[in-house]
């Protein structure tokens, strides 16, 4: 058990390092997109360690307890994440619902400490984050319902093996509409530009993060990176057939995150009720049609 826990911590740390460096590379790509030089690739690391080295302020014990609970929840989720179809910390315990609901612990921790900081902007940011979560969660779970119904097993490694076994037929190809809904929901989960209403720096002064300074903000940045790692690797395992070796995983991961980031860098920002209206109009209809087609008529490409 101790060895598994160590492997889990290794996976979580690997996820953090991977996501932070890819985010740094993406900042450079977006820089080049805007015809400017763009920062160094390890700029995200420097930002995080700079934050950890500053002396910050605290608004009471709930302000710190929430941040610890948030980072703890997210690290716990990342420890369950399989990287390739045979490399994971806890054998056949990587159930899909663990990821969806342990991220909710992270979200609850951050929400609690943000509204505990006593700043109205933080509470408004938390309200927007929860509303966005309500918006993108339902279509995503409907598509995952179809996937689990087809594969008959809700553990990520089984889903990977199912996709690799049937002639490497990824669910992105087998369920095209479902894959599209999954990607839109991924954009919502990552908080990328069209759905970035809860960290809107111009409107509500960076939302929930308004009162965080040195080390709390650094820990929240780490939490943000690891949750991005969880969400993107969930997408890779569910829709792109996971990976047989680590390099395949890295390539798929990089392609998915960069695509999401590029779309985000050319987009404006929705108002919060537009986000809810959008997600309950198109992605939900597409998810339901995909589910009906796949489960009842059995037309799976």
């Amino acid at each position, binding site marked *: 058990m101790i060895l598994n826990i160590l492997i889990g911590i290794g996976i979580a740390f690997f996820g953090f390092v991977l996501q932070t460096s890819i985010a740094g590379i993406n900042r450079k790509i977006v820089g080049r997109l805007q015809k400017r030089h763009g920062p160094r690739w390890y700029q995200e690391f420097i930002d995080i360690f700079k934050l950890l080295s500053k002396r910050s302020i605290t608004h009471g014990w709930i302000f710190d307890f929430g941040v610890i609970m948030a980072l703890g929840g997210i690290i716990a989720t990342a420890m369950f994440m399989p990287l390739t179809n045979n490399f994971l910390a806890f054998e056949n315990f990587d159930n899909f619902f663990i990821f969806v609901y342990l991220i909710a612990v992270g979200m609850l921790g951050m929400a*609690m400490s943000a509204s*505990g900081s006593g700043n109205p902007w933080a509470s408004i940011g938390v309200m927007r984050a929860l509303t966005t979560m309500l918006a993108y969660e339902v279509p995503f779970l409907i598509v995952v319902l179809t996937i689990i119904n087809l594969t008959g097993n809700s553990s990520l490694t089984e889903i990977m093996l199912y996709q690799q076994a049937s002639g490497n037929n990824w669910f992105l190809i087998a369920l095209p509409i479902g894959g599209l809904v999954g990607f839109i929901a991924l954009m919502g989960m990552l908080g990328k530009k069209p759905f970035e209403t809860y960290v809107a720096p111009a409107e509500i002064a960076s939302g929930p993060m308004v009162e965080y300074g040195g080390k709390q903000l650094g820990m929240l940045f780490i939490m943000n990176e690891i949750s991005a790692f969880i969400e993107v690797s969930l997408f890779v395992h569910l829709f792109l057939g996971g990976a047989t070796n680590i390099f395949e995983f890295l390539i798929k991961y990089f392609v998915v995150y960069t695509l999401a980031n590029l779309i985000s860098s050319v987009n404006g920002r929705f108002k919060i009720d537009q986000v809810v209206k959008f997600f309950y109009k198109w992605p939900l209809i597409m998810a339901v049609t995909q589910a009906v087609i796949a489960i009842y008529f059995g037309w799976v490409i």
Partner: protein
Amino acid sequence: MASVELLILFLVGAGVIAYILTRFNTFLGSIFTIFAVMFVFVSLAGYGFGMNMDTTVNILPGISFTETYLGFYFAIIIVFVYLMVSFFHPYYLSEYKYKNSYNLLFLLSLAGILGAFYTDNFLNLFFFFELIIWTTMFLIPQGKSKEAAVSYFGFSIAGSVAMLIGIFITYNVSGTFSIYQGLAALSGTNAIFVFVLFIIAAFAKLGSFPLHIWLPIAHGNAPHPFSPVLSGALVKLGAFIGVLALIRIAPATGLFTAMDLPIGQYVVAILGSMSIVFGTLMAIKEDDAKKLLAYSSMSHGGYILVAFSILNGIAFAGGFYHILAHALASAGAFMAIAAVARATGTTKMKELGGMIHKMPITYLAYLIAIISMAGIPPMGGFISKWLIFQAVIDKGMIFVGIAVFFGSVGSFLYVFRPLAALFLGQELTEYKKVKEAPLLMLIPTFILMGLNVYTGVFPGGILKFINNIIVELGYTGIEVSTYEINGTNGILNPALIGLIFAVGSGIAFLIFIVLKKSRKVELMDTYTAANFVHDEHLLHYAVDFYAPLERLYEKQSNWMTKFYTALAEKVRELGKLGKYLFMSKNISTTVFWIVAIIIFLLWGEVL
């Protein structure tokens, strides 16, 4: 060998003694009630688990008891909730008008519950139900709102009448009043008829979609210590009738081929999922914390209905576990709100804020309760939701799936609202002198916190007991080993999740401790874009927390209340017509109408 009949008689006697004692001094009376309920709970738990309660009847005429796993499971949960709530009595009873009758009615309703779950005769079941309904009907207006009692009584009576008609139909079909032979003998159209009537009774007691109007009114305005009992325990009676209807009768209506579910079951599942969605939407809008938790009970009632309408072992396990998890979570949440209401006098979120600074333990109790309500891993709610998801996904029910997923994410939203508006945020000046709840009130909060965590991390023992119930109902249970639950398409190890969550939090705590200590700053010194704001009411964001979300469904939010007022209007007009016909001024018209009615009724018989 504790005997059920003696327990009931003991409770009735204890009620009378409690009445006399509370008349003499409320504190003493309430302490006596606590010991009475504790005695019942200990004897029930001691003998009940081994299924060797003595069910012989020698004093009470015409009453007969049998012992079933199902009945015991419900009884032990409800008696436990009663025990937890009775710790609150000493501090609340002093301000109620009829305080000495409070303890009496409290113990009488407990006697009714014991009887209801142990009887095997339909009439006794109905009699004990009426005992519970009447006692709670007198308890609710102590919270100074007559309308709550009227609406509660109206809907409960509608449910009981439907159940009574069902009982009479089973009687003239099967010839006996015994529950198990009676239901087994039903078949064909009679079965469907009784199924529908029992479902109406279940919906009325559970407060599910079509008959949910009374839930927020009754729970919202009930006296503070009684609403945890109302929503934690009494809603479970509806679940009990639901089990009788959905599993015992399970009429062989036409099969719904795609999901191989009988049509009746699927309709109940759809109604259950509608009550989840409407409960969540109404709860997000609600401003009073107790009404909000009432709507959450409505949505969790929907989960229980969906679980029981899918006919396989996984769904039943999920349903029964959800009954336990919801009972503990909503009792804990309501008691936290009651503690806040005692300290500040109001439960409106507009007027409250920053209660965490003076009542941290109540805050922790509420936090753990809502983590379980939202179905988040380390707590019990997650296990039951996971089991229900397994069942819904296996059956491939998409629209029920939408409602179930919407409910689980939505429950995170509306349970967070009181947390943010009531407990966190700026500390308002008028609540600066508020003190933490007294020690006696904190004992149940600690116990409930521990139980919520226990049911979430070690569900093995409880699921094994639930397997007995499922086998007793005639379905195959789920395989549960000490640490793992294997559903049909996945394995879950809740102890491992709890451990890993602890490891993760340990790492985060380590990072936090290693780094430099941060400077304590009081709450008013926040970033207000350099404005000098001196009034913390301006900095506390509590009023209509999810405003953009509420705007989306503002107009459609009171359809059901409009429907019921229209219905009431129709009944009043019918009454006026009757009055006009029969009580008109000249006698001749009334006599004529009476004679005409008699002739019409006897038309078939005489001629």
